[in-house]
């Protein structure tokens, strides 16, 4: 019975997904619920499933005790810059690898790809020394931005995407007296818009959520991103559970809103490169 085994399979799959969803959603739910109750009720670190004493006081405390606005602004600025640099450089490099013939292009591409095999932890200390001791950039926006201004993963993603664009368009543009950069700018980029949108969103979210590098490279309060600031707040005010949850919500909410409003692109992003054309 084909249909019957299929039904059973679907039921099992659905059950697994429901369990998984609950596991993922509960912490998120706790965070939100915990952020809107008075701290007395949550000081026990065992928040209830329903808000007992609804109040925005934790948010007020969080913003009062920290430089949260500055941190949010930092995060917004850094994520935006990283999004722009990654979209620009990754699409340029991806296009070159996908469509332009140049000596050693394959070798260079494989060297780049192989760097993805090295865990980030391995390069962290050399990178730190390079940025702080050699370039003297410690505790600055540049220091936070530079290492991920372009990433190999994004180049790879864009190469996959650019490969699916018809080469004859490039030839047509070349015959139409378009300059090489003009071809990229006027023909390729407009066609790559869906891919660029996906890349932009993923980069923005990843940059916003990035913790370890900014944490390592920043010292002063006003250079912190929201995630780093939040961590410092947790260390300092480990007893004010409500305010901590409020801070976590402030850090997470922009991404949740972004996700729900651009869901379509996230789904596209998962399949990008897998489906051609």
């Amino acid at each position, binding site marked *: 019975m084909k249909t019957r085994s299929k039904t059973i399979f679907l039921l099992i799959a659905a059950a697994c997904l429901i369990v998984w969803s609950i596991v993922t959603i509960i912490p998120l739910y706790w965070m939100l619920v915990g952020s809107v109750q008075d701290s007395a009720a949550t000081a026990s670190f065992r928040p209830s499933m329903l808000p007992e004493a609804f109040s925005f006081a934790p948010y007020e405390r969080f913003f009062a005790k920290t430089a949260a606005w500055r941190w949010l602004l930092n995060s917004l600025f850094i994520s935006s810059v990283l999004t722009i640099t990654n979209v620009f450089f990754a699409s340029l490099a991806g296009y070159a690898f996908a469509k332009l013939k140049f000596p050693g292009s394959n070798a260079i591409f494989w060297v780049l790809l192989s760097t993805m095999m090295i865990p980030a932890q391995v390069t962290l200390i050399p990178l730190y020394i390079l940025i702080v001791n050699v370039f003297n950039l410690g505790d600055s926006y540049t220091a936070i931005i530079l290492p991920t201004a372009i990433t190999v993963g994004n180049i790879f993603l864009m190469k996959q995407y650019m490969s699916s664009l018809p080469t*004859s368009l490039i*030839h047509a*543009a070349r015959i*139409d*007296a378009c300059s090489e950069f003009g071809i990229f700018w006027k023909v390729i980029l407009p066609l790559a818009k869906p891919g660029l949108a996906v890349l932009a969103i993923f980069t923005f979210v990843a940059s916003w959520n990035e913790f370890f590098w900014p944490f390592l490279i920043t010292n002063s309060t006003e250079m912190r991103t929201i995630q780093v600031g939040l961590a410092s707040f947790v260390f300092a005010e480990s007893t004010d559970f409500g305010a901590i949850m409020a801070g976590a919500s402030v850090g997470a909410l922009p991404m949740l809103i972004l996700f729900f409003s651009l869901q379509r692109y996230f789904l596209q992003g998962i399949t990008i490169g897998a489906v051609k054309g």
Partner: protein
Amino acid sequence: MARVEFRNVRKQFDDQNKQTFTAVAGSDFVINDKEFVVFVGPSGCGKTTSLRMIAGLEQQTSGDIVIGERIVNNLHPKDRDIAMVFQDYALYPHMTIRENLSFGLKNLKKPKAYIEQKVQEAASILGLDDMLERKPRELSGGQRQRVALGRAIVRDPQVFLFDEPLSNLDAKLRIQMRVELGELHKRLGATIVYVTHDQVEAMTLGERIVVMNKGVIQQVASPTELYANPRNMFVAGFIGSPAMNFIDARVEEERIRIDGAEFVLSQDAAEGLKSYNGREIILGIRPEHIYGEDFAPGVSTEHQMQAHIKVVEHLGSENLVYFRIGSRTVTAKVHPETKAYSNLSKQFIFDLNKARYFDPATEERIDW
């Protein structure tokens, strides 16, 4: 003066395993000013590669390419005074038809009024006036094809390059566009290099045809010459439909013997085949030069043989009759009034004046 000349042009590709593959092996030809020349051959024979080398999209491995009076080896495509129509049209999907047509002229920094006039002209030649503000995806296949043509026309190039421009159209539209392309050639008075794998398209459009196989030019000649005097068995088999029959034969003094019959050769043929006396050769005869004995007006009945019909296909205007000689199936294209059905044993007339003979070892035509 826009002649195009290849001087011993080769093109090799290196594949992933560092094997070199010769896509075009030492091409030599001259395309005259205002001539319509068609490159034809099976897929993968190097037609597109040849065209792209003329365009400058591909750099030849060795040899010289001349357009007009200039050697263009190191010229960028935009400086070669050519325009190209691509197989998949390659219209810019995000631009309107107007923008598609004017893109090249804009890049060349032509004055606005000039561009406007050129676009208008091309649009009215091709009947695209109403579609200038639309995007390519809103057009039918035939209309897109016209836009692709228009994009070439606005450039006023010395040489038009066409890469299988009709292959994505349905049969009816293809024939209509074929006629229009012929007219367009007269109207534009430009040199046209046209690539196709379709020998009918080549025969109907080309003033001269370059037949290619496996990167090697087989013959350059007019359609009638190719049909009547193919240089080798490849050309003989490629041009004409149904294809020419190749029959194993043996020369014996002034006769040739084939399985089941013996034909006396004409004086010329006997003289020409003298050196093959006692050897095997291949007799090439087109299906339309074999007749049923009951319907062969004006054909000498001298060369006849009996054969057992296997299959008959009725096409209305003619019938295709299949019978065997030795191990080969032979096709005859006969008049519909010829009496023919399967299993009939029938007398066939061979018009040997139209037959051609080939050397089985070299596959070259035996010439005299």
